[in-house]
């Protein structure tokens, strides 16, 4: 059980490390150029890993709906935005507000598409998040 716990925690560390590294590249170039390198290097690496392990491309790839291909396009904008923001509002604020947005929009999204949502917990969670966001923008 210790390995999956460490893996999940390390994944969180890597999310921040990647934003920090991409942010550094964006400082010397632009957020869009940084986002390009992020995707290109990740793609090259995953291609090599996929070739070694094999079976990367599923047989039913033709049956995928077209919109599944849009994930990468959203990712380009997300990564560029992250690189742009981290140099302006810092790592903690970036982390907190991205998580806040992810959670609040996640609740709304699940609610709209009829996925099970436990109202009291989701609503209380959103209220706490909004209170925390209010703290991040208060004048120091």
């Amino acid at each position: 059980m210790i390995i999956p716990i460490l893996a999940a925690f390390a994944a969180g560390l890597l999310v921040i490390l990647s934003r920090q590294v991409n942010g550094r590249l964006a400082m010397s170039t632009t957020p869009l150029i940084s986002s390009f390198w992020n995707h290109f290097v990740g793609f090259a690496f995953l291609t090599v890993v996929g070739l070694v392990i094999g079976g990367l491309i599923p047989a039913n790839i033709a049956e995928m709906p077209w919109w599944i291909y849009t994930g990468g396009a959203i990712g380009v904008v997300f990564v560029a935005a992250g690189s742009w923001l981290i140099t302006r509002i810092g790592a903690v604020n970036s982390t907190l507000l991205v998580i806040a947005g992810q959670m609040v929009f996640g609740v709304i999204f699940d609610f709209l598409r009829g996925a099970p949502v436990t109202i009291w917990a989701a609503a209380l969670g959103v209220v706490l998040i909004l209170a925390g966001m209010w703290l991040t923008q208060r004048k120091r």
Partner: protein
Amino acid sequence: MTSPPTQRTNPLHLLAAFASGGLLTLAIFVNGEAGRFGGAMFSSWLAHGVGTIVAIVFLAIVWRGQRAASAEATAKIGKAPLWAYVGGLCGAVTVMLTSTSVNSPLALAGTLALGLAGQVVLSLAADFWGLLGLPKRRLDLRDAGAVILIATGSLLIILFGLGAA
């Protein structure tokens, strides 16, 4: 390169970060569907491949401005170190780690909760020490309050709010 620590954060920047979290929700949903077809590795590979093409198209459209802005940034800050180009490795490895933990008793909720903890810990350290060439930021009690409120709210949603009713 230290920004004034008492600088007020621009509310529009904070709003943009919040909105980008919404983009992340969307991307995770879409990539999750890709994962149902071909697994987490395929999903990440596809997203990075499409992302590379889309970034090239975007760059081609605005290349003049990007080249000028990049040259200006390099002149001001200096060239980026080589390691700054391989941030993409983090995202690729992240997928391998999360697909390990999602398929353990931790499941999705545990993976998200522990990932959130990892994000908060490293971002606090990053601001405190100004890790990897980014500006240092002074942390105060308001930051602590924001961390506690947003982390608690998120854990409530992850552990009790979504999924099982």
